[in-house]
């Protein structure tokens, strides 16, 4: 008999105070409590973290990599969003 699938969770860990939670991998668990415990056992055996988030994988909406050209075009083409676009006279010094 085929083994039934258990829900998939994505795991995020904050490694130190002041850093953001970072994706470290995924795991299977039937509910959030078990997912948190499994995340501790699988991803933090050597002091890797101070805080864990687990998120059901199907709750994540992702952008489509094949559309990344169109998706991120605005961030490529607007050079006036960067400080180096603007001329400041040398006499003014660092700004």
């Amino acid at each position, binding site marked *: 008999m*085929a*083994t039934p699938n*258990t829900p998939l969770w994505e795991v995020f860990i904050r490694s130190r105070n002041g850093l953001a939670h970072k994706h470290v991998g*995924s795991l299977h*668990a*039937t*509910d959030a409590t078990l997912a948190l415990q499994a995340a501790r056992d699988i991803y933090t*055996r050597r002091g890797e973290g101070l805080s864990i988030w687990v998120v059901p994988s199907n709750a994540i909406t992702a952008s489509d*990599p*094949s559309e990344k050209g169109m998706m991120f075009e605005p961030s490529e083409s607007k050079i006036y969003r960067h400080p180096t676009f603007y001329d400041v006279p040398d006499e003014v010094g660092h700004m």
Partner: protein
Amino acid sequence: MYTQALNSSDGDDRGIEDAARAAQFQARIDDDERIEANDWMPAAYRKTLTRQISQHAHSEIVGMLPEGNWITRAPSLRRKAALLAKVQDECGHGLYLYAAAETLGTSREELVDLMLSGKAKYSSIFNYPTLTWADIGTVGWLVDGAAIMNQIPLCRCSYGPYARAMIRVCKEESFHQRQGFEIMVTLCRGTEEQKAMAQNALERWWWPVLMMFGPPDKASQHSDTSTKWKIKRFSNDELRQKFVDATVPQAQYLGLTIPDPGMKQNANGNWEYSPIDWEEFNQVLAGNGPCNRDRLAARRKAHEEGAWVREAAMAYAEKRENRKLAQAAE
């Protein structure tokens, strides 16, 4: 290595792929870009990686058995705690790898079922028995040493999720090799009997460990595509040679004799070993090694006896979910 059965070719189905996309894909690989789960990839790339990563995962899980065998009989609390931690790491490695394999579209449950039914392979090395405590030292020193040789280049594999899982695995593997070597040092500094036990373990593990790197380059058909796709960065023979060259001085330090009287150092400083008995390797892969049946039986027993836990956890999660929905409806 952990994916030896890959060396058989299963045909080339790239002819039916969109040629332009395939060319674009290869250009990304050639530029050392990482391929991610949702990116387009040739079906054969997906298939090769699914098999390679899942076989690697199965090897980690089956690899818990020969060592788990000694947890209750470790000679001291220090050794027992270390071995327990090591076996727990192997389980973790298996789980990181299943998660990486799943990103290619096959569920972990399906992959595990393939292993339990005997359709998917795991590394030949775990079909050998751990007869004495010295075997635990030898497994850490040589089996994990060989695994590190193989896994370090995989950290730069073209498939992102696999490469990232391998980085975590490699960080932990170093502890495994060092704890094994420490056991060997202790035995070799001990009584005559302890040293003889270490020598005996080395004699039984040496050749099977060399076989871990897979068939010789001239017999391995699959390597070309894997190299082109940057899944594999060194050939079987290159890695095997690197391992032998690193291991010979360690054996000399221990005062142990590698069971290969014909071995000699060439002008380049490489240690040339005698021909490997590939018939033994083929037999073990075909299911006729000393422990193949035991290993599969142990995995099946654990899987079947754990079924009620999986079912109960799922039923509990459903009950809680339904209660929440009922409360919300009130």
